[in-house]
């Protein structure tokens, strides 16, 4: 693989860029691999990458129904943070965040990780207490956060209205080293690195069946024929239930649409990411200048990758209340993705009832930020049979009642 650099661009410019290679090969599948990953989204590609990089396993295929990075990896609002409350969550998201810090250099691909800081606004007494708790937990988890007052919130983000008539800002949980990255580039960068290690990324190839023998996985049936494998990792987000069904087990997952939108691009007005959970909305400004906006998930299950207008309306209302200048901007694009939600809103990285078959799913509304950590843990689990980062995220927790509930801020107060 030719390295990317300013010098390489200069060299290519002289010949109208005719010398650039494919970022990843487009191979036909071989008859068998040591490991197959189903799903070439961020999590699947990262799993393959760390299988190779950390565990020396490169006889790997990543199989993708559509085009790589085309699911939620390319549909999210690109926020990266690790200010989670529960220990297992903080561990894996912080691992991911720290890997993101050097990912451009690791992959030789600029994924534009931008540690611009994430502010989670506290707008009720209950939220103040909740974020103070998170700050205390983070201090012991090795995650650097601080609870700041409204004045500091305003300094960091001058366009915030901190004196709104309904929900004045009482403070915020600030993670300075959180931020954003270019979402597509994460998938592309991993894909290029995987391809370079000799792994096969096979797009437009749908898995139609999972072959087993004596309770062990032996391969997959696909639209491009049968492919054998010793180990199988299923990393297919919104369609996890469908693939699990092929292997004869069920998952505690529901699929719902989550929407996001962007405004037309404007000159920079906002350097940080702001999340306002009381009013249900979050926003940042992309390097292109678009205000990138997200909100809550739709209230019913579906697979359409479309959402209802009512949710967008609620989100935009919330954000105009938080950022009044937004009112005169125009909404440019608006899209939806299918997220898989578990009962405790935490992911599953686990062995399955089928031996040598592993599953990584249930990231709900927060998967992008976890990609490197998720891939790291999933690769370790697949390669060695256990991973401290994945330990608590096993399927067994639903049977035991060992939930990892992050919805604490959704509790209620008298």
């Amino acid at each position, binding site marked *: 693989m030719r390295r990317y650099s300013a010098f390489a661009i200069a060299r290519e410019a002289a010949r109208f860029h005719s010398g650039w290679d494919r970022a990843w090969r487009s191979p036909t599948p071989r008859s068998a691999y040591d490991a197959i990953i189903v799903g070439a989204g961020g999590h699947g590609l990262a799993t393959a990458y760390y299988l190779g990089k950390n565990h020396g396993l490169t006889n790997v295929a990543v199989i993708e129904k559509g085009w790589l*990075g085309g699911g939620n990896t390319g549909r999210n609002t690109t926020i990266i943070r690790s200010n989670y409350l529960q220990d297992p969550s903080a561990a894996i998201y912080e691992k991911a965040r720290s890997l993101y810090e050097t990912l451009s250099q690791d992959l030789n691909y600029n994924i534009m990780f931008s540690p611009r800081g994430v502010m989670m606004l506290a707008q009720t007494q209950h939220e103040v207490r909740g974020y103070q708790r998170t700050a205390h937990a983070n201090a012991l988890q*090795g995650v650097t956060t601080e609870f700041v007052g409204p004045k500091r919130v305003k300094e960091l983000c001058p366009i915030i209205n901190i004196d709104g008539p309904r929900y004045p800002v009482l403070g915020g949980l600030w993670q300075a080293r959180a931020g954003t990255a270019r979402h597509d580039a994460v998938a592309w960068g991993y894909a290029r690195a995987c391809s370079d290690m000799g792994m096969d990324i096979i*797009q437009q190839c749908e898995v139609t069946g999972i072959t087993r023998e004596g309770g062990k996985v032996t391969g997959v049936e696909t639209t491009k024929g049968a492919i054998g494998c010793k180990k199988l990792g299923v990393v297919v987000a919104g369609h996890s239930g469908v693939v699990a069904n092929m292997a004869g087990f069920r998952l505690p997952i529901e699929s719902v649409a989550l929407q996001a939108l962007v405004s037309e*691009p404007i*000159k920079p007005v906002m350097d940080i990411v702001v999340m306002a959970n009381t009013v249900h909305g979050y926003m940042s400004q992309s390097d292109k200048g678009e205000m990138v906006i997200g909100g809550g998930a739709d209230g019913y299950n579906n697979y359409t990758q479309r959402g209802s207008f009512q949710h967008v309306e609620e989100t935009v*209302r919330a954000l105009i209340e938080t950022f009044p200048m937004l009112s005169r901007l*125009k909404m440019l694009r608006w899209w939806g993705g299918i997220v898989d939600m578990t009962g405790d809103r935490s992911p599953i990285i686990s062995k399955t009832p089928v031996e040598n078959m592993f599953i990584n799913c249930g990231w709900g509304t927060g998967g992008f930020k976890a990609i490197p950590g998720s891939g790291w843990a999933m690769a370790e689990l697949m390669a060695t049979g256990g991973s401290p980062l994945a330990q608590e995220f096993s399927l067994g927790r639903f049977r035991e009642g060992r939930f990892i509930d992050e919805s604490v801020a959704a509790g209620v*107060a008298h």
Partner: protein
Amino acid sequence: MSSRLPQGGRLIDRSTRMAFTFNGTPMTGFRGDTLASALLANGQRLMGRSFKYHRPRGVVTSGAEEPNALVNLGRGDRLEPNQRATTTPLFDGLTARSQNHWPSLEYDIGEVNVALSRFLPAGFYYKTFIHPRVAWKHVFEPFIRQSAGLGKAPKKPDPDRYEHFYAHVDVVIAGAGMAGLQAALVAGRAGLNVLLCEQEGHAGGRLPVDGGMADADGWIEGTVAALAAMPNVTMRLNTQVSGVYDHGYVLAYERIADDAPGSDAPRHRLWRIRARHVIAATGALERPLSFAGNDKPGVMLASALRDYIVNYGVSAGDRTVIVTNNDDAYRTALAIKAAGLDVPCIVDARPEVTGDLPARARAAGIEVKTGMGIAEVRGRKGVTGVRLCRQAGSGVPVEEVACDAVAMSGGWSPVVHLWSHCGGKLTWDDAGAFFRPDHARPPTNQDGAGFVTCLGAADGALVTQDALSNADAMARQVVGALGVKPAAADLPETDSVAEAPLMPVWVMPHGAGPKKRAKMWLDFQNDVKVSDVQLAAQEGFESVEHTKRYTTLGMATDQGKLSNINGLAILAEARGAAIPDVGTTTFRPPYTPISMGAIAGEARGEIFQPLRRTPIHDWHAGRGAYWEPVGYWRRPYCFPQEDESHADAVAREIDATRNGVGLLDASTLGKIIVKGPDAGRFMDMLYTNMMSSLKPGRCRYGLMCNENGFLMDDGVVARLNDDTFLVHTTTGGADHVHAHMEDWLQCEWWDWQVFTANVTEAWAQIAVVGPKARTVLEKLGTGIDLSAEGLPFMAWAEGRIGGFDARVFRISFSGELSFEVAVPASQGLAFWEALMEAGGEFGITPYGTEALHVMRAEKGFIMIGDETDGTVIPQDLGLDWAISKKKDDYLGKRAHERSHMTDPERWKLVGLETVDGSVLPDGSYAIAEGENANGQRNTQGRVTSTYYSPTLGKGIAMGLVLNGPDRMGEVLTFNTTEVPERGGPPKTIEAQIVSPVFYDPEGEKQNV
């Protein structure tokens, strides 16, 4: 040079002049102009700068698809960035500034990017700026952010207002061009309820400009009048159908007062429409041609150039070269000639050109150069000429033609967005080289039937006569499908001209080399060129979605309206695939960007969410309550008196309540009636307690768990009579507890005879609390026996107090003698005031939520949301006594038997007292030895509630601690987030495990 023609302009009123400024320069136009036509009339062709290379740009279209002519409109708090000059009606006093340049539109330092463009191909930023790591955040990214973006955002809140409007119709028609008008006639005459929306300020669409009907204006006027006479038809101008959603839900965006800033009217109105059927009469958009220099100011779509002449009496140039691959562009040549301007030649890529329109052009003396293309456009900030070449060759110039404008046409694409928003599929039309709706695969509604119909040009019928017949026939089908018989046909006469087929031309000339392809723009605003799409394909970004994302093709504010098909064709060619095999990106709402203000509507400021008020709300406000939002309610946190701090106010309120009498407005607590023969059985499932055994007249504190066994709500249940319970919930829990009940009743126990009703707002509920509580109530006069024997703790009674109908509940959340009195909501304020008056001599004091919280913590009562967080089970809180052992089942019972729930090593409720009497920090954790496998410090407990207790004069806290109740007296170390001294260890604080009941552990005070 662009200029105003001496005559013509069917949309302008030359008798009314409008003064406006552009970049500070005063200019004038006429009523009826758009900003774009007025700028052209003033000779201002340079209108903006492109996004990436800061190329000088002029207007290229005459409509909503404009990528270049975007301005900052207005000023101050009414500034609006990225306003399209082509859809901005001119008004007197308009101010506009061009965008994305420094120091000026004419001389932009950013234009250096043009010289560097060879080093800045698609996706260059993924390949560089990688080292050194810190440089991305501190050097590269800030630079990129500054040079990106387009307009400037307003800094102040928006002074304008917006509104929503709701409509339920049989048919909504998008577009009042010829096809839309005909469809409206058909549907209107059939008696259907029709809403006809037109994005422009006038009906008729392209018909008067494109010809095909002798008296087009007459027909349009007549049709509009006929529709206006139908009471079942509504037509709205300046209203664009923006999005189509499932179940026939449609959004339309009406611009009302954009041209009257500061007027009384709402600026925009969002129509929220339910339609049985959607008709998209949305026409077609012309495509640019890809030749070197096709982005220079003066190169425009042929149709736009013709629009400016016919509609606004404005010419884009004095000598215009036409370049085309189809017959339609000849209309522009004829229009220019008719306006008395020069057309040096028509450059037609087709080797042979026959047909009526070319014949007319030739007859008008215009030279037609067949089989030719443009090799290069000359000029820097504007067109000065074109070099021509053979279309079939590699671009060797064969001649140069001087001109100051170029009109280009690469064919037309039907506007299929509304068809596609909800999943309608497309089919490729080889003859027209465009995608059109695939009638076999429409978007389907709740009944599985297609609910969107494209007609006229939007269905691919581009010639006037075809479009009209298509519109009429399709509209009849729609009417028929809605169960109505269409009326008799009456189609106007047309004189459409037959058109020869176009020849798809995706690159001009066909064999252009890389140097030329790097100068052919596909996406004007985002500066995506033919070479960029080819590079993407070469690097493996073969999916259309990959290409879009890698190159940013179609991601500009015009959302690819001009660039999508051309880009797809280039990608298909690079991949050696057919265009339909490459596919399109997904069309999503909105059709063009709509204001955020319109989406939010009226909801902002005080009414941004519904505000729920108790009957006593205004009294609280009048006493200076400091509010705490709880759900949609606002509750007084405390009532600070002048110069009093919140903490002091809380201490005063507690002291008054503990030693005299306090009043709490508890009206926000949820009140749900559960009634029916199976009510007891239902209550037993809902609560962990046994509720069916509760006697009428008595109350019981109950716990509600979710299916996973976690405590979700608590409160006091009163049995009103044999088949009726009154459930009290937390304030924030009322709505979801009610929904939870209905969920179970409707989905699981649908055959149980139980009804529920949320009566929260029907009652005002006031807690009268403190040693003097009974005295105050008795002073008011009551027939209810309020004595300890007559109304013991956890009993309730009904009667009159001080002339008010009341229910009195003898319950306490403070540990004091306490009566919660419910009166009808309408009597709430009067009753509160009567209590205040009666209690005056005892120092009666209203208290807020914080005093409530402190007093309950002093008593060791748990608070949902503090002691619980969705992971806590009743057993953790020492509430095993409230879990019935006698019942077979209750919600959460099975979960309580899971292994983790029965684990003896759980964190359990205790009281905590700091060794020095200080207040523990909120949310602090008790540290344990060592670290876990992920390097995180081990913990053994956490603080759930912590307050300064004015009653006890020290800090008190509740917390969950590993095996806590077995460790009384042990001292734990809690962490803090205080910044340690330089180099020092993190600050911690020590606290002892004690009983959670700090005040009156025997309960003597509440049982008097």
